[in-house]
């Protein structure tokens, strides 16, 4: 099976590092990042905020945050096109995220950099980025409100719709 990104195995390892680094950096600076569903939510990508040099979005919502994390690995490291939303890295939401990447069926197969999408059905209502596994449970960083982001077990809410891989 070709990977969702087209990257090689070794490239995917490096890409996941960058994605998780971006999510963790934003969590560590949660008091300086804000939640919005307005046009400013693409601040991270539009202003090319690079987590590797300590930059993170001032504004985002769940899907633009997840997309920015992936953009750090897929674009800043490997210069790839928008395999997450198919919108040239300028737009997207959980509905477009569901239309791209590959589905992960079992939690045991989940890897850092995968995304959990929540909702009762398409187009979904929320998403979060997997950052590690604790005792076999995928852990996510979720940015779903002004108080966020938060570090949580992937099933912190009961409506896990899909887990998708873009790397």
């Amino acid at each position: 099976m070709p990977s969702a990104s087209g990257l090689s195995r070794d490239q995917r390892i490096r890409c996941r590092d960058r994605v998780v680094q971006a999510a963790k950096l934003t969590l560590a600076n949660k008091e300086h990042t804000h939640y919005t569903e307005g046009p400013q939510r693409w601040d991270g990508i539009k202003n090319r905020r690079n987590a590797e040099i300590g930059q993170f979005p001032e504004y985002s919502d769940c899907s633009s945050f997840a997309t920015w994390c992936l953009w750090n690995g897929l674009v800043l490291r490997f210069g790839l096109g928008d395999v997450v939303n198919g919108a040239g890295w300028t737009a997207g939401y959980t509905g477009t995220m569901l239309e791209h990447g590959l589905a992960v069926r079992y939690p045991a197969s989940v890897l850092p950099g995968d995304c959990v999408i929540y909702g009762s059905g398409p187009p979904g209502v929320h998403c979060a980025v997997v950052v590690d596994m604790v005792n076999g449970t995928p852990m996510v960083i979720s940015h779903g409100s002004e108080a966020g982001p938060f570090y949580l077990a992937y099933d912190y809410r009961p409506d896990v719709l899909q887990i998708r891989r873009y790397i």
Partner: protein
Amino acid sequence: MSGDKAAGFVDDDPEYATDAAAEIDVEAAGFEVADPRDVPADVGDSGTAEPPAGEG
């Protein structure tokens, strides 16, 4: 969880499913795991795909 059968599942390829997991060193240790009961309700996604500004 539902899935996209048309596109297949990552799990259908065991090598890609695990994808060198042992070589990934990205532990988020040090962060406190939030209690979901203490987390404000997620506002939700914007629920719409704004027009792309063009391939970037």
